[in-house]
């Protein structure tokens, strides 16, 4: 746009813009990084934090239309634009609360577009805050304008973001008003995505409730009520159910026990038919002596003084399978499940059967 076409007031505003451009650019780089740090501290993950500084031509276009509205460049609130995209719709309010703590919010110019719709219409959902860096948070004597510049932060979920982008691309890019049938289709999509957003949030909420409930049941010892799955098994392992047996086995040779991840035992427990954490608890109660006998037989005549924490559940399963008639085939299945199929697993299973056949637990 040729500057000669612009009135003197607009030219003055553009001049102010040019002199402030380095500050705008720096703010647009620094603020998103600070925000990411705060989100991390607050313990939640956002999909993206985007930023842009309005280009001179875009600003000139805006000023040409409504330049008289602005007395100075500081009255324009969207020269710096940030966008925080969350995974879940209900995280938008969490992002907003972080912004409220960090910045001075210009409530008069901030807008919650999520509330802008009638109850029976669907469309653009986003929360827009106009912010300013408060002097109490940061000042720079060389750049007092830092605390005068307002910037816009748009907050929305990935689905809201996808809809807004597609709507913009399909509905406005051509510059021609689109037929009402397509407007209706886009509104219908907005409704579906709003529903999906709510569903994701509901699933997350209910999973969190489920996990809390499992942890409560594990802590209270009501293990028979807890279905065996990845979440419940993780909570159960966290209370160290095999530690006592591992310590007992380690005492055979005064060995050290290396703590390792025991998640490989979940498929094994399922394969041998366990349905609840109560089943594993019963295994520990009823088979610890047998597992200890196996360990004593194997380690007693050695000087091995390092063990893995997977030894207790491994020996418990060995004892359980043998005592329940699983024999060599059952032990091969155990080794296949724990270590992956291997041509030597059958021979190792046979070796284990031989080792255990005369141990007291097999004859009780």
């Amino acid at each position, binding site marked *: 746009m040729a500057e000669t076409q612009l009135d003197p007031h607009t030219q003055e505003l553009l001049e102010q813009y040019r002199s402030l451009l380095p500050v705008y650019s720096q703010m647009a780089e620094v603020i998103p990084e600070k925000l990411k740090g705060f989100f991390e501290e607050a313990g939640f993950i956002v999909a993206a934090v985007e930023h842009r500084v309005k280009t001179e031509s875009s600003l000139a276009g805006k000023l040409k239309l409504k330049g008289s509205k602005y007395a100075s460049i500081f009255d324009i609130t969207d020269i710096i634009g940030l966008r925080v995209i969350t995974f879940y719709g209900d995280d938008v309010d969490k992002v907003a609360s972080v912004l409220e703590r960090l910045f001075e919010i210009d409530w008069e110019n901030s807008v919650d577009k999520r509330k802008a719709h009638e109850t029976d219409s669907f469309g653009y959902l986003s929360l827009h805050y106009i912010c300013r860096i408060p002097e109490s948070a940061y000042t720079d004597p060389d750049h007092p304008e830092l605390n005068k510049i307002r910037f816009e932060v748009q907050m929305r979920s990935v689905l809201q973001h996808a809809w807004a982008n597609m709507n913009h691309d399909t509905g406005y890019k051509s510059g021609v008003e689109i037929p009402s049938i397509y407007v209706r289709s886009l509104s219908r999509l907005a409704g579906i995505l709003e529903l999906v957003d709510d569903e994701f949030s509901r699933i997350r909420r209910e999973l969190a409730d489920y996990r809390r409930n499992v942890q409560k049941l594990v802590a209270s010892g009501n293990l028979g009520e807890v279905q065996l799955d990845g979440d419940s098994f993780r909570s159960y392992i966290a209370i160290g159910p095999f530690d006592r047996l591992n310590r007992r086995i380690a005492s055979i040779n005064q060995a050290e026990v290396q703590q390792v991840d025991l998640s490989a035992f979940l498929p094994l427990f399922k394969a041998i038919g366990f349905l609840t954490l109560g089943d594993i608890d019963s295994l520990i109660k009823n088979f610890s002596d047998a597992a200890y006998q196996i360990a004593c037989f194997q380690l007693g005549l050695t000087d091995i003084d390092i063990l893995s924490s997977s030894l207790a559940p*491994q020996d418990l399963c060995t004892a359980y399978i043998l005592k329940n008639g699983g024999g060599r085939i059952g032990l091969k299945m155990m080794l296949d499940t724990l270590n992956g199929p291997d041509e030597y697993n059958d021979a190792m299973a046979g070796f284990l059967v031989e080792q255990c056949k005369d141990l007291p637990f097999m004859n009780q």
Partner: protein
Amino acid sequence: MEVIISKENKLVTAALVGRLDTPASQEIAPQIESLKADAAGTIVLDCSQLSYISSSGLRIFLSLRKAAAEKGGKVIVRNISNEIRSVFMMTGFLNLFEIQ
């Protein structure tokens, strides 16, 4: 005790030859430490000529596994004899490594 190291792209193979007892573990410690520099890739411990492993040897295997886990790599134990396999089983080490 001898360690023969060969490298090919991101795959490092260390052939362990002899008895890996306590003195041998100390002897090969520098070579094992040098292997950790490649722990972001795959380290293969070829045990076809390893005749014995003590607790010190197991610790060496474990230290390599830790280094690999920290760097996103993995340790493969290859060609172990039945005797060493049974040591791995009775210590709970069998499911800590990919055994080929």
